[in-house]
């Protein structure tokens, strides 16, 4: 311990900036991993927790295998009471006005209070001593179809009280409801941070336009009943079209739906950690290289090999413990940012989620230290082992220090080659449970192949470029390249770290650029209508909000409309996940639309066949995920039991990764009942001004109906907005990784400067001016940056191919056309070069800060 204190801790304190750089690198790496884990679990858990709080004491639920349960079926389910209490419910997301004059998403539960009170706990504010109302009195509050019960939390936040009027938008219609009561923060009222509302089931059906339909029947088993046998018993007796399941299954489906999105974010978050590990490796190996003579001396005095190993592993352990602790503190702040950035994607593409990330818990601490410390020790293992092998005499003579730089290590090239081949081999594997594990292994192998290729690449650059550096930068260029050549082993590691993060940035930029270009093309080709309408309450496919007949009539009464295409989509369970079923006006689409077909070649003919034969067309992600091709059949749960649909064609679709099956509206109605459309596409007569028609429609709809009406241009812009916000976090994570990598360059330059202090004195003695020394140091950082940028760009191109053609296809099932965003890459190249050159500023300042004689001392 004493040896550790005087040999390791003292050095760390003597080089506070290099130590701080490493700590910040590790802390940021850990913080990003924990933050993404927290952000991911927030969206899943907010849904699961909402599910759990809303489920209350529900043991099982009866749901439709398709969409909803027809209320008339309830009469034939009287036998369910043998298994416990039952309560029919409907659940929907509605919009409720807040004090800022905007609308907030609120989860609405419609219940029969007389049946529901054993299931869920409701306590009303100002309602007797404990707030638990008599069900009959509660019923009296709910009976008025124009009343709603909000939570105390929501009301307090927005200044509402009992008797207040609130605007509620369900579907497309805005209605004014009276707040009949306020729920204390207990039971379902805790859902979504208080964004919860309660209504009588009949009133709720009326509000959300689901007369005659319920979402599910909750069952509460008596004490002591066995869940498994009850579930089996019920399943055996249920009529076709219904199924029994524990409430948590819906959470699992959402988790599955978000799995690929979360997996990719998690993988991305590990880049910063990987770069942080490079820093640890760099710090420990620098420490070992710089102190070979001291280690040799200690070995000569009796330090055993295992003690030498323990000393340097101890250094890594010490740095990683502090780094992880700092990272943990930083993680929640980053998680808040990550949730804010990802919420647009999650809310627009998957499910409504609005909870903030949870506070840091033991689990996050276990994860931070459990991942951080072992990985840091692993990163330090190689240099620590090298320390243990230092021969006492050779080290004292300093003989092996001079031999360290300059020689081409062919084994590095060999390892790089083997890893490169492994990366190529791994691209051929199929996904595991829908996750591109081999694809990520391939990307990782590529990254390490690149890291091992760095020392030879640097050697080659410095040897060949030596003359060029002199021509470009004069004697300072020669000095800089000679210095780097002599410190090849030390600089290889921070350069490799920078290469890794830059390669990922380039790869992501190409992938996102390609994706954006593909989406742009797709949008151009497929969005032909002049106006697009959807009810304001409809945030995503999982939320309700159909276009009412009255509103549709009002809209279609506009004389400028030549044709209208109705579209309806909803989620149904499919296997372990959920897929989207959609109905569209195939006749109008055939005439006006522009779906892009992947197969067969004549997609329009396929669409026509689907219309005639009652078949479906499948999105590419459905086709890839479930391995279905044109000609195959899919079996779907419908309102009348399961039915088989033949896939007539596969079309490109980038609006969702969950898989979409589209059928003609008539086919949809035949199988799923008469459903109101959720979207309308309007084709205007020649010469009609879309903006004017839009204004006219909105005026006609008045205050009563709430709609989003997009013109063709604004919808395209909206698509790109959602697209860009989806990838905002990828750039955020990348920037952190690059920052950590540049930190690595700064810390290694600082270390080099400290080690070369004597050489700098010599240089000053023979007449080097301060500015020349500064220029030399900045050229060194510039060369490191330029080599990193060049290698990073090359490796980034390879990684982008893996991302686009392996990982993306296996995760989301999207074909992306390769497109290089040259302008973006050129800008970032210049910026990174400037950033790396500037990273030499402080080390350069340090190199010349003191007077010559102070330096000499």
């Amino acid at each position, binding site marked *: 311990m004493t040896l550790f204190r005087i040999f390791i801790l003292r050095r760390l304190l003597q080089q506070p900036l290099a130590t701080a750089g490493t700590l910040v690198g590790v802390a940021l790496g850990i913080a990003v991993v924990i933050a993404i884990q927290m952000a991911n679990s927030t969206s899943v858990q907010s849904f699961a927790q909402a599910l759990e709080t809303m489920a209350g004491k529900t043991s099982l639920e009866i749901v439709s295998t398709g969409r909803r349960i027809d209320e008339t079926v309830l009469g034939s389910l009287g036998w369910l009471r043998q298994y416990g209490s039952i309560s029919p419910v409907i659940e929907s997301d509605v919009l409720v006005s807040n004090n800022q004059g905007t609308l907030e998403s609120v989860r609405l539960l419609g219940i029969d209070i007389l049946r529901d009170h054993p299931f869920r706990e409701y306590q009303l504010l100002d309602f007797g001593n404990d707030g638990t109302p008599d069900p009959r009195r509660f019923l009296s509050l709910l009976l008025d179809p124009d009343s709603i019960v909000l939570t105390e939390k929501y009301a307090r936040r927005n200044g509402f009280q009992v008797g207040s009027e609130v605007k509620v938008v369900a579907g497309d219609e805005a209605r004014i409801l009276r707040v009949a009561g306020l729920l204390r923060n207990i039971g379902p009222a805790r859902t979504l941070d208080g964004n919860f509302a309660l209504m009588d089931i009949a009133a709720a059906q009326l509000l959300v336009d689901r007369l005659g339909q319920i979402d599910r029947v909750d069952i509460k088993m008596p004490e002591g009943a066995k869940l498994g046998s009850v579930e089996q018993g019920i399943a055996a007796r249920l009529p076709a079209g219904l199924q029994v399941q524990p409430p948590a299954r819906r959470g699992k489906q959402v988790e599955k739906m978000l799995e690929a999105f979360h997996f990719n974010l998690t993988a991305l978050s590990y880049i910063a950690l990987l770069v942080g590990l490079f820093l640890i490796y760099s710090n420990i190996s620098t420490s070992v290289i710089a102190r070979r003579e001291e280690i040799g001396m200690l070995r000569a005095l009796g330090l055993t090999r295992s003690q030498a190993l323990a000393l340097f592993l101890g250094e890594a352990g010490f740095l990683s413990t502090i780094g992880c602790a700092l990272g943990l503190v930083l993680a929640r702040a980053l998680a808040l940012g990550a949730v804010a950035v990802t919420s647009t994607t999650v809310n627009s593409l998957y499910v409504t989620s609005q909870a903030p990330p949870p506070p840091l818990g033991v689990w996050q601490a276990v994860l931070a230290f459990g991942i951080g410390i072992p990985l840091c020790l692993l990163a330090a293992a190689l240099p620590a082992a090298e320390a243990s092998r230092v021969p006492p005499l050779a080290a004292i003579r300093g003989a092996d220090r001079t031999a360290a730089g300059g020689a081409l290590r062919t084994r590095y090239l060999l390892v790089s080659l083997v890893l490169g081949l492994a990366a190529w081999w791994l691209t051929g594997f199929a996904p595991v449970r829908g996750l591109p594990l081999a694809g990520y292994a391939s990307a990782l192998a590529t990254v390490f192949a690149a890291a091992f290729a760095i020392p030879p690449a640097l050697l080659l650059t410095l040897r060949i470029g030596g003359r060029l550096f002199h021509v470009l930068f004069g004697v300072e260029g020669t000095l800089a390249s000679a210095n780097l050549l002599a410190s090849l082993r030390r600089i290889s590691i921070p350069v490799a770290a920078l290469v890794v993060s830059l390669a990922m940035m380039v790869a992501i930029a190409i992938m996102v650029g390609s994706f954006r270009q593909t989406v742009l093309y797709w949008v151009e080709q497929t969005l032909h209508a002049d106006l697009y309408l959807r009810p304001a309450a409809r945030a995503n496919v999982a939320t309700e909000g159909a276009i009412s007949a009255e509103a549709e009539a009002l809209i279609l009464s506009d004389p400028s409309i030549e044709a209208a295409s109705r579209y309806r989509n909803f989620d149904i369970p499919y296997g372990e996940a959920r897929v989207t079923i959609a109905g569209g006006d195939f006749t109008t689409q055939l005439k006006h639309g522009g779906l892009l077909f992947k197969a067969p070649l004549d997609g329009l003919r396929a669409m026509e066949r689907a219309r005639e034969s009652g078949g479906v067309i499948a999105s590419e992600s459905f086709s890839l995920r479930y391995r279905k091709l044109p000609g195959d059949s899919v079996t779907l749960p419908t309102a009348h039991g399961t039915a088989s649909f033949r896939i007539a064609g596969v079309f490109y679709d980038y609006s969702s990764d969950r898989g979409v099956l589209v059928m003609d509206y008539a086919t949809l109605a035949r199988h799923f009942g008469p459903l109101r459309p959720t979207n309308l596409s309007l084709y205007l007569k020649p010469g009609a001004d879309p903006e004017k028609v839009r204004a006219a429609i909105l005026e006609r709809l008045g205050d009563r109906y709430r709609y989003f009406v997009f013109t063709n241009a604004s919808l395209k812009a909206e698509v790109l907005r959602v697209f860009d916000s989806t990838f905002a976090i990828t750039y955020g994570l990348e920037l952190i990784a690059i920052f950590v990598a540049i930190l690595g360059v700064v810390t290694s330059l600082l270390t080099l400067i400290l080690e070369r202090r004597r050489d700098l004195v010599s240089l000053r003695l023979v*007449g080097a001016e301060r500015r020349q020394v500064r220029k030399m140091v900045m050229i060194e950082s510039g060369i490191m940056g330029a080599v990193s940028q060049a290698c990073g760009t090359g490796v980034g191109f390879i990684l982008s191919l893996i991302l686009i053609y392996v990982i993306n296809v296996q995760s989301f099932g999207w074909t992306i056309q390769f497109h290089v965003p040259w302008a973006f890459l050129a800008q970032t190249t210049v910026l990174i070069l400037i950033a790396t050159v500037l990273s030499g500023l402080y080390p350069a300042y340090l190199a010349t800060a003191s007077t010559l004689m102070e330096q000499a001392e």
Partner: protein
Amino acid sequence: MPILVLQDVHKTYQEGETPVPAVRGVSLEVQAGELVALMGPSGCGKSTLLHICGAMDRASAGEVWLEGNRLSGLSDQEMTVLRRRRVGFVFQFFNFLPTLTVLDNIALPRLLDGAPKQETSREARELAGTLGLGDRLGRYPSQLSGGEMQRVALARAIIHKPALVIADEPTGSLDSENGLRILKLFQTLNRESGLTVVLATHSAETAAIAGRILRMRDGRLRFPSTEKETPGTASQTGGAEVPR
């Protein structure tokens, strides 16, 4: 004509709160073409005085003129440029840049002054050839013997044809044979090229090559700078006569 003039030069270092005088009131004149030895025991202040003479350090008080330039009136930048162009250095521990080849180390002062690389390399090659280093140019300093290293240091000190060469214990790290060889080189350069040299040493053998010997003790010159102690006197104090 004096190349170097020191007038009542003092240098005091601060060690915490305590001022430690290293040079106390030294006045000195060095004429062009002179070879002056500064002798004295370790810690007497001769290295400090040498650093001040070579524009490496500033005096705490007094004035120093190098080729007519008053050093106290020069900025750090001007001092550096003056040092680079008009002063050459030879140190006991050589002070090479280990990352540069012998050729580049020799050429360094010229390169730092912005001289073209080709021309500088040619000059460095020629100079190295005359010093018997022609086959060592591509090597790194760590691959040379002590004697070779000091010859490289000498080559680096004179490549830019300085007005003054400062040598601090130039034979301190060498065996006697190599030490003698280097001293001969100093002598030859002084005699044949008129090179002005001020060297510091604690060895009478080394001082014996000088045309004038100045003795230093406790930061002071024992003789006035204008008085001259001959090499013969030096040998009487225990130094050996250097063969000429």
